[in-house]
């Protein structure tokens, strides 16, 4: 056919083929660009770069890796002035961890081997020249000694061990005690209010207080023990500082590392990022609570939205009288998908949190309200309300997908089931729903992807900047639906726009974005895997 000379290019449709492929290419390029930016910037954070000692004109020197170089904004195009951004670290000395310098001020740049990078619990990283180390036994090592490096690493891991012990002490035992004390205090107030004997409760409280003091001392002792070891260093201006080892998370010599050692640090930082809790206003440390919160919320949301959506769709498709009212309902459901998510957030706050949560508090936690300064339990943002809000938001997706899936079950299957004497409900239950399951799952996948990436409504109904206690833990009842939690999407917003030091937070924004994308991809792959298994089981007959 195409060889017929009279057929024009337009008639053969070639321009449309080009146009459609162009559309695909534009889409692919944008996705690839976004992904490569996120991946490169996100992974760069973890890579230990070489650290320069830069001498500036006025006799000042800085130690720190160069982050970026650009033409100074406002400098003439004919004679551009370049400036460089350095991560100078040591906020207690430099004020800001990232600083810009005109390139013309740079006199000399070198990469001395003795420079060290230190990640610390407070005041961000530091780039210094080490002088001497006093270990926990009081023995002193000069930085020039051969044993210095090994001893330093030993002390760093020892400090890490102590920090972990203190953390677990605070979290598990002290946390447990705290909640018991909280309860006893409420009991006490109730007893006082109702003129019941208060002595046993007071005694119990006293006992708990003592236990608390004991644990507190234990924690302090641990800290003191760690405080013996210290590292003396010189900063860029050759001023001496003493850094307790307890403060040091990681120490490395960026200009001496082999490629393998760099990789080691790279992966250990990624590991820390995924498994540790955030510190320093979220600009450092890990995002484990946020990962956990995002996952828990998304899974819980799916568990809520799937039955609701499927039930609604089954009624709409199978039972409801087809007519004007049904069309109207369907249009409303579809429009629900177009409502801005923040509106759902406001609704969630107004209805779920205040009305539903408030009622639950009135009914079941009246004591707590009365005797605990009116602090609400469910009447404030929490995991359950976030999940419910997002479930409501993603409901149209599931309903529409389920309706489509139900509609595409071959008519023959329906008839076959009815003809054997099955009732309509049995037909739906045993034949139609299983056959529609892959299509329903597609809807759930879409809903999960949308829910996991949503931020705006969550800010109103329970996501917070910092919530180190997870919504699922070892304290009964294990699943704490009323707890506020952290979310990767909100974490990103918080880092990017609410952080006191936006330059310090920027790398973390990319790393968090990368993680969120990976998480959503993983959730989707999981769901797609399930769907494909179902599809293989329920693939429709060939004719």
């Amino acid at each position, binding site marked *: 056919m195409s060889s017929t000379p009279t057929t024009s290019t337009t008639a053969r449709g070639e321009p449309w083929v080009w146009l459609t492929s162009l559309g695909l290419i534009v889409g692919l390029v944008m996705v690839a660009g976004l992904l490569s930016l996120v991946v490169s910037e996100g992974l760069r954070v973890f890579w230990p770069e070489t650290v320069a000692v830069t001498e500036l004109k006025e006799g000042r020197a800085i130690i720190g890796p160069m982050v970026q170089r650009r033409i100074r904004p406002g400098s003439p195009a004919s004679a551009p002035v370049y400036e460089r951004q350095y991560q100078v670290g040591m906020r207690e000395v430099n004020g800001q961890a990232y600083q810009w310098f005109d390139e013309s001020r740079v006199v000399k740049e070198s990469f001395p081997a003795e420079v060290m990078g230190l990640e610390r619990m407070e005041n961000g990283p530091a780039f210094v020249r080490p002088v001497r180390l006093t270990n926990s036994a009081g023995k002193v090592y000069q930085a020039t000694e051969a044993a210095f490096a090994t001893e330093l690493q030993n002390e760093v891991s020892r400090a890490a061990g102590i920090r972990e012990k203190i953390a677990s002490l605070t979290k598990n035992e002290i946390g447990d005690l705290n909640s018991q004390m909280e309860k006893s205090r409420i009991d006490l107030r109730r007893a006082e209010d109702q003129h019941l004997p208060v002595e046993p409760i007071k005694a119990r409280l006293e006992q708990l207080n003592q236990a608390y003091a004991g644990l507190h001392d234990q924690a302090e002792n641990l800290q003191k023990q760690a405080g013996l070891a210290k590292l003396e260093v010189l900063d860029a201006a050759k001023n001496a500082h003493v850094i307790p080892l307890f403060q040091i998370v990681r120490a490395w010599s960026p200009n001496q590392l082999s490629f393998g050692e760099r990789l080691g640090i790279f992966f250990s930082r990624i590991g820390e990022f995924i498994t540790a809790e955030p510190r320093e206003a979220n600009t450092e440390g890990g995002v484990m609570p946020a990962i956990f919160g995002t996952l828990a919320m998304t899974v819980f949301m799916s568990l809520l939205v799937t039955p609701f959506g499927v039930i609604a769709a089954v009624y709409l498709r199978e039972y409801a009288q087809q007519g004007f009212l049904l069309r109207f309902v369907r249009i409303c459901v579809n429009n629900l998908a177009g409502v801005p998510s923040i509106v759902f957030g406001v609704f969630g706050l107004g209805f779920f949190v205040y009305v539903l949560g408030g009622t639950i508090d009135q009914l079941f936690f009246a004591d707590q309200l009365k005797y605990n300064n009116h602090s609400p339990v469910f009447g404030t943002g929490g995991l359950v309300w976030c999940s419910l809000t997002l479930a409501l938001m993603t409901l149209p997706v599931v309903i529409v997908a389920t309706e489509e899936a139900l509609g595409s079950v071959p008519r023959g299957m329906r*008839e*076959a089931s009815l*003809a*054997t*004497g099955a*009732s309509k409900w049995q037909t739906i239950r045993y034949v139609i729903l299983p056959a529609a399951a892959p299509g329903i799952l597609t809807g759930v996948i879409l809903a999960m992807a949308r829910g996991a990436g949503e931020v705006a409504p969550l800010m109103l109904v329970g996501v917070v900047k910092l919530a180190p206690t997870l919504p699922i833990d070892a304290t009964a009842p294990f699943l704490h639906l009323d707890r506020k939690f952290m979310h990767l999407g909100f974490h990103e917003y918080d880092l990017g726009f609410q952080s006191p030091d936006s330059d310090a937070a920027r790398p973390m924004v990319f790393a968090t974005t990368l993680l969120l994308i990976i998480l959503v991809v993983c959730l989707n792959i999981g769901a797609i895997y399930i769907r494909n298994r179902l599809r293989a*089981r329920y693939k429709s*007959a060939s*004719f």
Partner: protein
Amino acid sequence: MTRLKVRPSTERGGRKDYISIKNFGFWYGSKKALESISLDIPERQVVAFIGPSGCGKSTLLRNLNRMNDLVDNIRHEGDIQIDSRSIYDPGLEVISLRRRVGMVFQKSNPFPKSIFENVVYALRVVGVRDRALLEEVCETSLRKAALWDEVKDRLHDSALGLSGGQMQRLCIARAIANRPEILLMDEPCSALDPIATGKIEELIHELKEQFTIVIVTHSMQQAARVSDRTAFFYLGKQVEYDTTEKIFMNPSQPQTEAYISGRFG
């Protein structure tokens, strides 16, 4: 559970008016699909409905187990009685009617489940949990459908892996698993090759010992081969209904003769 008892074997060709269609008319919306049909179908015989496309033979068949109830906007007049009881009796549940009147469709429509689950589906939906009973019913049904030897080693494989002819026989096994009294077959061989068709026809011969069979077919040869009686429909009207021999050898209506000799249709 009484439903599962084996029916006492009686002489072939018991009641003459086992299914009795009386002055039956049927409308899809305002379109009249059937007009005053009256015919009696004897017990344990095979009756074939023939006629050109759109003549209403499938509509009539699908009324016998009220499958047409699924269609919106339908209306009927007259009556259909099975064993002297009207199928439109308000006291009769459609579900129990369909348990007595099994159906095999033009397109084989096995469920996307295992062969075993397909066969015992009708028992599953009434809540039979007894494994031994299910297995027994599965085997007898598949044997009756002449499929047992081919699938006995893969009962728990997906039914969708069977060939077209096997699938159709599976559908027959599924339809007879809860021991209906009547089996409706809506062009059961139209999508099958001649060998599979031959097997199904043999099967019909065997099944009529136990079931009353009504078959809709486009193939005159098939009607001649399998049926005892044949009804010819044209444009929603019953033109002629008689023994198959009479219809094919010596039809009384010129329209019937024209159709079976291939001059129209």
